[in-house]
């Protein structure tokens, strides 16, 4: 009974919102968009109870700039949206990285381009892992595959954002946002954090002014600033990549999938193994930094690798880069809110195995 005492059945969106509060978030600025509306709704209900602030902004553009202001003032702050809304936030995200202030951004993504649809999709991979706005930058992108992981990673995202003074994105899809699963709110791994002595809290007349700024008009200054940012991104690459390898030790065929697709592919791996095909799965938990080590560790028994995505083929580029020609790389994807079935993935695998014979 004790085991289940704190276990609650929760929608992904609500679990993410609760996990943010659990992780110390006290400010939320957002704008309604399907399929993430339960996040601002939960925040509107729960933030005041913990002495925090929920504010519905006039637009996604305003919301991310409120986040920018609050983060500069030293707060733990978050915004959430879905694909087209995240596109609108790119300007602010670029400034936030440039100014080195921490925040958490949640994207419960849907199909595109344009207004697209409202059903789950993974077509924001490029946007999330390549910066997304103007300039040379990156941020850590978490891709949870279940509600427990979504909660754990969201709470931890605030620690990591503060640690690097850089935004962290939690990238779910409509399925992760809308489905309910059991979740336990457990202790968050803590990092050694420096005091936010850079925050604009008023000089109090006792120190020089703090300035939150991304403008560097002298090319040499801007280049130096970029080198400083790149050094941080290198640290993240070295220390923050995460993935799960499932049944890869003796695999002849390895799938790569994250989030909702990874859940389906996991079943596919089991089914293929029952049929005698030694299949395995690499599930990136961070999309950036991409978990290249997991690919280096693949055994020589592998004959083919396939990226399975709810997109027209985006992560597959990173799979090719990680493998650098070592194995043939294939792709199977559905888009627009269509979710690949186990059967079609199995067929794609068998077809590719025939091809690489």
């Amino acid at each position, binding site marked *: 009974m004790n085991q289940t005492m704190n276990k609650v059945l929760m929608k992904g969106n609500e679990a993410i919102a609760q996990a943010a509060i659990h992780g110390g978030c006290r400010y939320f600025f957002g704008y309604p968009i399907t399929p993430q509306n339960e996040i601002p709704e939960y925040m509107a209900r729960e933030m005041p109870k913990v002495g925090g602030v929920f504010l519905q902004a006039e637009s996604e*553009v305003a919301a991310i700039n409120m986040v920018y202001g609050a983060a500069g003032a030293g707060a733990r702050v978050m915004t959430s949206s879905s694909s087209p809304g995240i596109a609108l936030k790119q300007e602010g995200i670029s400034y936030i990285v440039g100014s080195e202030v921490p925040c958490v951004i949640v994207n419960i993504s849907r199909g595109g381009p344009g207004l697209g649809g409202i059903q789950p999709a993974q077509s924001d991979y490029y946007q999330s892992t390549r910066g997304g706005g103007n300039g040379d930058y990156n941020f850590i992108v978490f891709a949870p595959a279940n509600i427990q992981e979504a909660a754990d990673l969201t709470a931890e995202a605030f620690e990591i954002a503060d640690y690097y003074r850089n935004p962290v994105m939690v990238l779910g899809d409509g399925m992760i946002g809308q489905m309910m699963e059991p979740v336990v709110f457990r202790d968050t791994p803590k990092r050694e954090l420096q005091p936010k002595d850079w925050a604009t809290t008023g000089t109090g007349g006792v120190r020089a002014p703090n300035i939150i700024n991304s403008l560097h008009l002298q090319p040499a200054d801007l280049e130096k600033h970029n080198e400083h940012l790149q050094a941080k991104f290198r640290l993240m690459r070295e220390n923050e990549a995460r993935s799960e390898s499932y049944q890869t030790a003796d695999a002849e065929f390895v799938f790569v999938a994250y989030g909702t697709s990874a859940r389906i592919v996991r079943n596919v791996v089991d089914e293929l193994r029952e049929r005698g095909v030694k299949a395995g799965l690499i599930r990136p938990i961070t999309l950036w930094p991409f978990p290249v080590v997991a690919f280096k560790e693949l055994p020589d028994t592998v004959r083919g690798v396939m990226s399975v995505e709810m997109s027209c083929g985006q992560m597959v580029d990173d799979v090719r880069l990680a493998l650098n020609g070592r194995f043939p790389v294939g792709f199977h994807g559905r888009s627009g809110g269509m979710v690949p079935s186990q059967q079609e993935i199995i067929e794609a695998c068998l077809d590719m195995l025939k091809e690489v014979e």
Partner: protein
Amino acid sequence: MPVVFERTRGLTEKEFHFCPGCTHGVIHRLVAEVLEEMNELGNTVGVAPVGCSVLSYQYFNCDMHEAAHGRAPAMATGIKRVLPDRMVFAYQGDGDLASIGTAEIIHAAGRGEKITVIFVNNAIYGMTGGQMAPTTLAGQRTTTSPLGRDPRQVGFPLRVSEMLATIDGAAFIERTSVHDPAHIRKTKKAIRNAFECQKANQGFSMVEILSTCPTNWGMSPLESLDWVKETMMPYYPLGNFRRPEAVTVSGASGGGHA
């Protein structure tokens, strides 16, 4: 020797980059003096815009943020919500506030956000080289309205103070000018009143200040001051458009507006 005049502590020692005859410098000084006189410098967070005053974070001697173009009121909202007992102000030009940032300014006013906005209206884009602004007057020549602004083609100049004064969240809205010493003094009073209004938690406050741009208007500094008085003021009448009834402001600033 007794000191009869000195630089305000509200400004750093950084030299202004503004063009000769531009009144941004005067307005910066007024804001700084008011914050110093209110003893709020150590308690203030300012937000700089994108435009000619983009570098104002180097000039104001208090904590500062540099916002994206037009987003200063949203950024100031984020700061004020985290730090409700600090003075938070945004300094914006006409392109920043009245063009790309219209949504942000209207909704900051609508929420009665307890921030003070210093809105510098010089009827042109200065930083980018004299293009048409949302407040460019009908007939006014700019680099993107070379034949003069034709309202039938490109719309009418916006009267922002009048517009914002219709919003209930706006506690204090006043338009002033800095084209002569008397008006500079009135502007300072208006700025003081706006900050007092914020300090008393009465809601959103804004002072719109008619300002010059000799470089892009193609005039001498003196001609520019005259142009403010003779050409801008008839279209943008000075006066208070909204003030909280309960607040005791430091003397009546500006003339009442019908």
